[in-house]
């Protein structure tokens, strides 16, 4: 069985600064994907960034980037130039290639961006 662990329940950052959210996972699968989702107070999950496990290059999406360490089973999210609109819950999620799109989520990290 796969598990996803986010060890930081809450984090805060000053506007315009950089913050890193941590995520570790456990799996015996070789082919899988990792995601970071953002959940604002509206509750709607929004995809932030996706990483294919077979790619060594870390994914980036504008101000968002990941540090994917496959051997260590670590998948952290870096947010640069933090903005007030980044305030939300952030969930790390695992998806095995052979499980039909099912997502396994971590417990979440509540990020507050302070002006």
């Amino acid at each position, binding site marked *: 069985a796969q598990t*996803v662990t986010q060890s930081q329940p809450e984090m805060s950052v000053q506007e315009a600064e950089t913050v890193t959210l941590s995520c570790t996972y456990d799996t015996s699968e070789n*082919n*899988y*994907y990792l995601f970071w989702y953002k959940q604002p107070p*509206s*509750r*709607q*999950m*929004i*995809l932030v960034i*996706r990483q*294919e496990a077979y790619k060594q290059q870390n994914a980036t999406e504008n101000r968002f980037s990941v540090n994917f360490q496959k051997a260590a089973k670590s998948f952290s999210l870096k947010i640069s130039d933090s903005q007030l609109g980044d305030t939300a819950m952030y*969930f790390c*999620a695992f*998806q*095995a*290639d*052979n*499980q*039909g*799109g*099912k*997502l*396994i*989520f*971590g*417990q*979440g990290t509540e990020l507050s961006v302070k002006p």
Partner: protein
Amino acid sequence: EAGVAQSPRYKIIEKRQSVAFWCNPISGHATLYWYQQILGQGPKLLIQFQNNGVVDDSQLPKDRFSAERLKGVDSTLKIQPAKLEDSAVYLCASSFLRQGGTEAFFGQGTRLTVV
């Protein structure tokens, strides 16, 4: 394009009552998921449909929960009878393909409170 629609947004019921949630996925999305998100936790998959067939309901408490997806489009999730521990947000998601790496699009969820 229109997103995943869910209703109602909020529901309060007494224990042992029944309740139903409705989801309309993005047009053309064959795969539909229902997730349960208990306060302070990440979402957990309850059931997954491919068109109108169930492909994974291993974590659905079948003694009280049921779900259907008529004509492979809209879906309803029902709880009967409800227990206090069913208090949670129920998220519906859909994806175009049922394979790894495919982005799941989420609705805003239904917040259920059982008193």
